[in-house]
């Protein structure tokens, strides 16, 4: 039996629909740290470049394989982008997740050098898991780095009350991009 998963990307307090695909796999493109070594396979994807939304997941010795589908999702497939900020953004909090028995870890890869680091983990989780993690993360300057666990006390209905920042320009990378745009205008 195949279980349909909704593909999500979790980074700090943001949950985005879909997981990006490039050259038949999930690309590892960290914003912090360096990848001059070989990154491990996150997942092979039987889809053209772009985004996948709903998928079936198979696991073979080489790693997970995502096959697009159209069925109603029963679980979440979450690409968790954990990070620790590097030089120039040390006052911004790092983001980590303490994975519990509620998720199945499918693959993992990370940076090995450079300023700051990132570890991306692909997990299969219950519906609502990514929002639960995201709404607990406080992405404000001078907040300490946070390693967040799934919290059963946060009910799914409360996600709406806690605002999830989807397109806020408060994170360091977005701030730098905004500054660059301003500079070009100037």
């Amino acid at each position, binding site marked *: *039996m*195949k*279980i349909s*998963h909704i593909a999500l990307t979790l980074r700090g307090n943001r949950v985005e629909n879909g997981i990006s695909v490039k*050259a*038949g*796999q999930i690309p*590892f493109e960290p914003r912090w740290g360096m990848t*001059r*070594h*070989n*990154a*491990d*396979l996150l997942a*092979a*994807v*039987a889809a053209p470049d772009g985004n996948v939304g709903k998928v*079936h*997941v*198979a*696991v*073979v*010795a*080489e*790693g*997970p*394989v995502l*096959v697009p589908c159209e069925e109603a999702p029963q*679980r979440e497939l979450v690409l968790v982008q954990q990070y620790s900020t590097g030089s120039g953004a040390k006052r911004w909090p790092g983001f980590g997740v303490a994975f519990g028995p509620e998720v*199945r870890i499918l693959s993992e890869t990370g940076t090995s050098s450079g300023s700051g680091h990132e570890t991306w983990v692909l997990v*299969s989780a219950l519906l609502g898991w990514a929002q639960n993690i995201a709404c607990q993360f406080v992405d404000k300057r001078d907040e300490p780095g946070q390693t967040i666990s799934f919290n059963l006390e946060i009910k799914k209905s409360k996600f709406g009350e806690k605002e999830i920042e989807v397109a806020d320009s408060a994170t360091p990378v977005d701030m730098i991009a905004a500054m660059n745009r301003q500079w070009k205008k100037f």
Partner: protein
Amino acid sequence: MKLFWIAPGEKPEESDLIADQIGVGEYGRGRSKGVIPVIGSGPELRVKKTEDGVVLVRGNWPSEDRCLAGINTVGAYDRFRSYAIHDAQGIHPIVSGTIAFGEAGRVNGGDEVLAIVEPDAEFRLNSKYASTWYRWTGNEWVMETPAERKARLALEKVDKGEGEWL
């Protein structure tokens, strides 16, 4: 057979076959050099074994799906990096030599090999930080990162109905 030269992380380059001999490895302390003569004229090579050794013979031979590859396994200097032909399949060495770092040749190094390569042969070479897989299809060389190779194999397995569905 065509002759290609391969170095870690770099695209294989086809040789023009104009030299009268092919050398692999280096002369010197902690090193060894292997030399193989090339005779005749023509666009294709064949390997001939004689009582005194092996020679490469140029000629208008029919083209083959095998090829010859001069494989230099040594990347940039690193004290402990493993420089060798890793996980090789379908590679038959004819002559080999050794390349080393440092005057005394004792720091680190690896082999340079001239080999006959069968179709679908593959092997992995380390460069200073990364690894690259090389695969000879019988017609061309395909280079893949370990992740690209895993992705290809994983998709092939799922197409055949293997694996566990979540």
